[in-house]
Every structure is written in C-alpha cells, then in structure tokens.
C-alpha cells in the first residue's frame, strides 16, 4: 500500500483539511472525492451542501455533477437556489468552500474565465459559476489545483474569484463575510497565506517532493515557511476507502 499517486496524496491532504469543518460547500471533481473521504475519516458529521440546492446529502455514489439525483434522495433538505445562495451562503453559515482554478496568483486570486483578452479570448474558460460568491462568502476557502507555471502565474488574465486581491488589508476593505483562502492544496505540497502580507508561502511538502520541484512550477519567487512540514503519507485506511469506495475505477491512480 506504500505506493500512491500524487493525486491520491492531494485528495488525502484535502480531506484532512476538513477535520474541524462542520458544513462544507462541495464542488465537483477532486473536492467531491475529498469531502466524501473526510466524511468517512476525519469528519464523520460533515454536512455536505451543494449549490444546486441540497443540504445534508448522503450520496450513494460519486456524482458526476453537483445536480445529480443521488444527492437529492435521502438528503436532509432540498431547496430553491435563491434560498441556498442567500440564507446559507450569503448569510455566512458555510464553514469551508472548495475551489479549483485555471490560474492563481500569489494572493490566492483565481481566474476561471478567460486566457487572453476578455473580448477576444485565446481560450474561453467556463466562467465563475458559483466560484466568486463561494470565494467571498464561505468562512474559509480551500483551493485545490495541480502545480504548473501556466496555473501559478505572476498576473491573472482576469480575476473571477477574489482571494486577498493585492494583499494586506485589501480583502477586509471589500466588506465580504468570508476570511478568504486558507490553503492551496497541490500535487506536491500545501501553501498557506501570511497573516500580514497575505502572500502565499509553501507550508508543507509531500514525501519525496522538494522545494525545487515546486519552485520550477511557480512563476514567482517562492516564499517558504521557516519550518517546512513534511506531510504524513496516506494511511492504509485512507487509501483503502479511497480506492475501494470512492475511486474504484482508479482514475486517481492514472
């Protein structure tokens, strides 16, 4: 069981980050697997909320979409989107939101809208969906994305979802209810954000990864924690649940 992929390590790290969470806004893809793993390990009472309008889902299978019927049957509550977006999210009731991104800068701002100019894009990406409000309104935001210089850029082509903007107090001046990005969970290690400058720094590495590996994939000169933590590899229990229950097709092993 000692061999695991970077994707598996990333999911396990994300699940562990939910240890003290009570209510999580679940996205599709990696966050979905991470939330389900957390519910089966560190956070058995974790309430899963989907922006499609579901509270307290107990999915019997891993849904492809956040609107899958398996999220509805057996949920605690299902409601119109205006209610979920306003009374739960905007009201400040959600602990943690997960976001991915096509581009991220050092202050945790995210771009999922366009590569290139907005009016004449080189690549038209999906846009915000609920990402902008999740970034603003969840108490904490966890960002999951793989390391690459195309993703970790000096300057975003477009700010879809604000992190700490230009750093420092900038986000507080926005007056939004969430505290902003808490961590960026990658396939090689985890970034956190400086309490004052709000710039991200490398806080921990996965076993076998080096600072150089990370720096190679980030466009700006990295800041690094004084005491760089090495993350415990996935346990047998974590891997068993992941492989047998959540990823039987082995997509995270590819």
């Amino acid at each position: 069981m000692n061999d695991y992929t970077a994707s598996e390590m990333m999911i396990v790290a994300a699940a562990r980050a939910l240890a003290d969470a009570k209510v999580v806004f679940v996205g599709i893809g990696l966050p979905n697997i991470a939330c389900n793993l957390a519910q089966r390990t560190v956070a058995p009472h974790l309430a899963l909320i989907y922006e499609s309008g579901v509270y307290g889902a107990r999915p019997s299978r891993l849904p492809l979409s956040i609107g899958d019927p398996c999220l509805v049957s057996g949920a605690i509550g299902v409601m119109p989107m205006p209610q979920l977006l306003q009374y739960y999210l905007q009201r400040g009731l959600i602990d943690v939101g997960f976001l991915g991104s096509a581009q991220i800068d050092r202050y945790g701002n995210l771009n999922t809208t366009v590569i290139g100019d907005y009016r004449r894009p080189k690549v038209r990406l999906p846009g915000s969906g609920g990402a902008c409000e999740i970034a603003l309104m969840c108490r904490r935001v966890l960002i999951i994305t793989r390391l690459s210089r195309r993703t970790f850029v000096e300057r975003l082509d477009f700010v879809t979802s604000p992190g700490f903007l230009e750093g420092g107090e900038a986000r507080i001046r926005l007056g939004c209810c969430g505290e902003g990005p808490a961590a960026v969970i990658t396939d090689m290690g985890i970034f956190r954000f400086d309490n004052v400058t709000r710039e991200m720094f490398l806080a921990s590495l996965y076993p076998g990864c080096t600072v150089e590996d990370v720096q190679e994939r980030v466009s700006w000169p990295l800041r690094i924690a004084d005491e760089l933590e090495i993350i415990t590899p996935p346990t047998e229990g974590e891997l068993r649940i992941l492989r047998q229950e959540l990823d039987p097709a082995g997509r995270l092993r590819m």
Partner: protein
Amino acid sequence: MPCFEVGDSSPIPSLPERISRKGDPPVSKLTSMREAIAELVHDGDSVAIEGFTHLICFAAGHEIIRQRKRDLVLCRLTPDLIYDQMVAAGCARKLIFSYLGNPGVGSLHAIRRAVEKEVPKPLELEEYTHFGMVARYIAGAAGLPFYPVRTFAGSDLPRVNPLIRQVEDPYGGGTVFVVPPLHPDVTIIHAQRADAAGNAQIWGLIGVQVEAAFAAQRVIVVAEEIVDEAIIRADPNRTVIPALIVDAVVHEPFGAHPSYAQGYYDRDTETYIAWDTISREHETLMQWLDEWVYGLSGRAEYVEKLGSQVWQRLKPGDAWSGQVNYGRYC
C-alpha cells in the same frame, strides 16, 4: 440618528460561534420548554414568535410569561393574542409589527391599553406593513444590508418610521423604498415535526417562518412530533429549517393552541372570540393569566385543563397528501 436598534445587528453577520455550537447534525438538542426559554431567552432580547395564524407557539409565549422575562422587543407581523398576553404580563418594552388586531374579531385590548394608557407600562411601537416586515426578515435571513420593496409609496409610514428609507435605482427607474434587516436575538418556530437535531418540516401556511429563523441569532424549534431523521430524509423538499441553525428542540404537542397545526388540530376561533371579552379590562385579563399561565406548570397541564371535549371539537378529518417517488439511485 440611530439606524440600528435592538434586534438589528451589524449588516455583515459573522456567526463563528453559532457554527461551532450547532453544527453537528446528529447531536440531540431535545430539551424542555422551561430549559429552552431559561437558557435562550434573556431579558432585553428581541424575540420573534412567528407563524401567520398557523403554528403560533403559544406554549413558548406562556413559558416566557411564567419566567417573568422583561424588556423584550417582540417582533411579529400580527402580534395576535400571544403578544397581547405577553404585553399585559409586562414582558415587553417594544413591538415591531405590521397589524395590531385580533383577526376577524377586533382590537388587541392589552396592547391598546399599553399604547394609549401605558397600562401596565409604556410600549414603544415600530411599525411596518406586512410586506415591510417580511422584507426585514428576508434581509436578515439573506445577510443583506437592506431590502427593496415597492410598497410604502404615498403612505405616511415612512414619515413616522425613520428606518424606512429610499435608494436610487441605478437603472434609471427612480427611487425605491428599502428596509433594514431584522435579526431577532431569538426566533421560536413551531413545526408539525422535527428530528432531535432540529431539522423541521412544515406543511400548510409557512408564512415568514423560514426567514425569521435564518435571520435570528438563536433558534428554538418546537414540534408537535419528534420523528426519526429517516422521516425527514424521505421527503427533503418538505424541510424548511435545517439543524444547522437550531439551538434547542422542544417536543410540545398542542403547543400552538389556540392557533393551530394543519392536520393536527383546528384553530380555536371560540378562544379568539372569547379573548375580546377577557382582555377588555386589565384585571380580568390578569385573572385569566393567573388561571391559564401562572397557575400551570406548562403546556401538558394546559392541555389537560382545556379538556378532551375541546380537543375533540378541534380534531380535523383526514386529507392525505399522497406521496411522490424520489427514486433510489446507486
């Protein structure tokens, strides 16, 4: 100018302690009415016992009277008999409301005495229309700093209530009235059924109960029946209040009388009509409180004292909803 009064918290509600306190869905929050009121309702609090005609939690109001809570700011569209009783008992210093009558019968005499004659003490009024009150709750529930409405135009209400203001439509449509959020310290919700964690389901009139609950700092759910979580999960579209925002759950059958619970018991119109006589004089009203509130330990004694004939009269026939198939997906 004071723009936020008691019952209005900061426009950006941050609820860290709430989440950590209430978040665990499987934890039972079952308690007695006495303990729930003692722990969660404090002198000076703003309190919303909502429910439009339907599901007004008289059991909670009576317990507040018994515990002699003072200086409450009472929020409700229609103060109804329950706030008339609480005002007569001296619990309230202020009403936030939109309709001050005994529906279909006449005046609320105790509240009129307080307003017109300061008996038993003065009562401050903060007045809206129904839609204005509803909008205040919506703003509170939605975490919005204000809520726009097309009512109030041409009325004198904005002149006497400085919290009703205007903003300019940035799309060129002129001005529109707005109200600020209402954030009761405590909202008390009566529901037909809830699980022990506080997930509650209501059918029939829902009124503004959902908004009043999400707007509040603390929520007490009172239910006719406590059911297994599986009953709730079988019909998730019926759920109106999630455990997430609930602090205490009280099992109190018949707790809404003389208001009603759809499918459980009828509205007791005789009591509503009789109140007109009982409440005309402060003294007869206080005698009624002695007999029906102070003299009883709680709702169970009230139910017994009211007697089986009344409950028989109020029992409706059956009218079942039919059921729908959510489908099993695996």
